[in-house]
């Protein structure tokens, strides 16, 4: 088997604060293969963004206690010297963020910003880099790119800004693109365009993609594997088919029951998860989901469930037995379409 592109082993990111230790990420492991799209789902504060900011080395070691391993093509990024990180970040791994309004600099022309990103890694002239920027804008579907490179971000619409961000992220042909809620700020029609664009470019550049999102619809349409996170830990990990049609974790069930569905007749009532997401300073004992779980048992309150593999790569962190999980999912959760 070829070496996985990215392998994260037992990653922990803890922030010491005046109020206590914030366990933003608390034991996350996963692998991403070449050409694969991993969807990372979870609510705010589940640690999904911090996990990938750490992978990119964007969380300062002065502010956080970081443990574990982040192996990119076998090299541990957590222990890599700064110049190695710099050469990987933006070139081999690049990231696009939720808000294209704030991730482009308002004072500089869009073309100049893309040129800067390219020239940070490649030793080419400004003219050549500019030609490349124009070509990238064309490839992400911006019309009249020769004029557009000379415009400022405020002259772009939200969808176009996100396209420009994608152009910048892909201009160095990265192996891994991390998209942190790339379409949350956009309208559905623009969202569909951007997601299709990411899918298409992923094929063209044969890159791997991590899609961080809270939208279970986006994941269902665009991701191969899915990791569901809760309170800094993975709750469930599996292929798209496994997570949607054979889910093994009560938190995933809760999410599936909470969403309003456009594809089904108007259901009478949503079944939300009761309570609130936990504080990351005072994480509940045992399973962090136990105070909100409708199937809670005594063991859940004391013992932290480990992520256990049931078949292939499908894994879940829950004390319920496999047969129980299957029974509950198919009787209570799975939608009768």
């Amino acid at each position, binding site marked *: 088997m070829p070496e996985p592109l990215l392998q994260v082993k037992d990653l922990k990111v803890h922030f010491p604060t005046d109020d206590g230790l914030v366990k933003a990420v608390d034991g996350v492991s996963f692998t991403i293969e070449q050409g694969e799209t991993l969807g990372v789902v979870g609510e705010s504060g589940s640690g999904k963004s911090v996990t990938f900011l750490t992978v990119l080395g964007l969380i300062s070691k002065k502010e956080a206690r970081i443990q574990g391993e982040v192996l990119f093509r076998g090299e541990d990024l957590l222990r890599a010297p700064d110049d190695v990180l710099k050469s990987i970040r933006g070139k081999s791994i690049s990231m696009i963020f939720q808000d294209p309004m704030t991730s482009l600099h308002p004072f500089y022309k869009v073309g100049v910003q893309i040129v800067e990103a390219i020239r940070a890694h490649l030793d080419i002239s400004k003219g050549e880099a500019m030609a490349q920027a124009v070509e990238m804008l064309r490839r992400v579907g911006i019309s009249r790119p020769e004029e557009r490179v000379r415009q400022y971000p405020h002259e772009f619409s939200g969808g176009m800004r996100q396209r420009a961000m994608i152009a910048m992220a892909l201009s160095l042909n990265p192996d891994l693109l991390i998209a942190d809620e790339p379409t949350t700020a956009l309208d559905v029609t623009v969202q569909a365009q951007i997601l299709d664009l990411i899918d298409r470019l992923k094929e063209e550049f044969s890159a791997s993609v991590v899609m961080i999102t809270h939208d279970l619809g986006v994941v269902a349409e665009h991701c191969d594997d899915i990791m569901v996170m809760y309170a800094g830990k993975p709750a469930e990990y599996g292929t798209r088919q496994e997570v949607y049609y054979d889910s093994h974790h009560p938190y995933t069930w809760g999410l599936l029951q909470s969403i*309003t569905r456009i594809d089904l007749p108007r259901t009478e009532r949503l079944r939300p998860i009761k309570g609130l997401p936990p504080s990351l300073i005072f994480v509940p004992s045992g399973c962090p989901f136990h105070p909100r779980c409708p199937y809670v048992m005594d063991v859940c309150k004391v013992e932290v469930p480990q992520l256990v593999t049931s078949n292939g790569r499908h894994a879940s962190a829950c004390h319920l037995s496999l047969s129980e999980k299957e029974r509950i999912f198919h009787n209570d959760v799975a*939608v009768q379409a």
Partner: protein
Amino acid sequence: MSATEVATELIPSGIGEREPLVKLVGAKKHFPITRGIIFQKKIGQVHAVDGVDLEVYPGETLGLVGETGCGKSTTARLMTKLYDLTEGQVFFDGVDITKFNRNQMRPLRREIQMIFQDPYASLNPRKTVGTIIGVPFRVHGTLSKSKIKSEVQELMELVGLNPEHYNRYPHEFSGGQRQRIGVARSLALRPRLIVCDEPVSALDVSIQAQILNLLEDLQEEFHLTYVFIAHDLSVVKHMSDRVAVMYLGKIAEIAPGDTLYENPKHPYTGALLSAVPIPDPNLAAQKKRIVLEGDVPSPIDPPSGCRFHPRCPRAQFPTCREVEPELTRHHRGQFAACHFPLEDRAVIES
């Protein structure tokens, strides 16, 4: 579409009254664009809402959907008279309130309330929750001071907040709880109409469902009428009896919720629906997509004829460029403004 046609066609089943609670007739709202500081010169105008006829019937939920800048929030603000109309009329409970001034509006303000999108920005951080929820009582003087506290605590209980948290400040609450505070405040004066402007879009999925259920319970208990604005089409589908789709300041299509989602007639509705990601991988793979190119044109200078024609995959020229389509009837209660409407079941197979 005449008013009588609407009255006989659009009333949701099970609702007896035929008089709309709110009615917009030919409503327009144009915002001037000016240049210069002292001598302001008008150099153009934004056609935010450009000729909207809309009725909201007592007890129903009317959903308003559309992309950013389509005029859905402006339409709601015209209904509540937070903006004055540039043209057209607005009726509340059969009374023409188009020309009402502040004093005349005051008694009506009790009947019309709003819930806003951002639970962080819509609550004063320096006031306690008890004070915030009690403001409507003080403004309208409906309760003596001694009774306000017990009434506020009752409201807090009603929306699922702990009444003991009366003296806490907004920052001590989570997003979902803050939205409950906003709901409690809007309910204080027992209004008849609540305009919910993106009430759940800032919230996490599990919390969204809690708030949506709360809104439904309250509607039943207090016979509320909702105007529900959201850009998330599945949320609107879940909440609404009827849904109006807006594009560039006009209504593209209006229909009972299920009809609209099963059988959209306007290509824009079809495109919007087909763009919504379906949380079911197998079904998502079967979905037919109507892809829209480009962005919404500027409302400063909207396209001629049908406003959707530059992006429409079905546009035929010169008709669509020259003739503005009227809202025409398709199925029961379904009206679409399109020269070449979609065939039945063009988007979702069933």
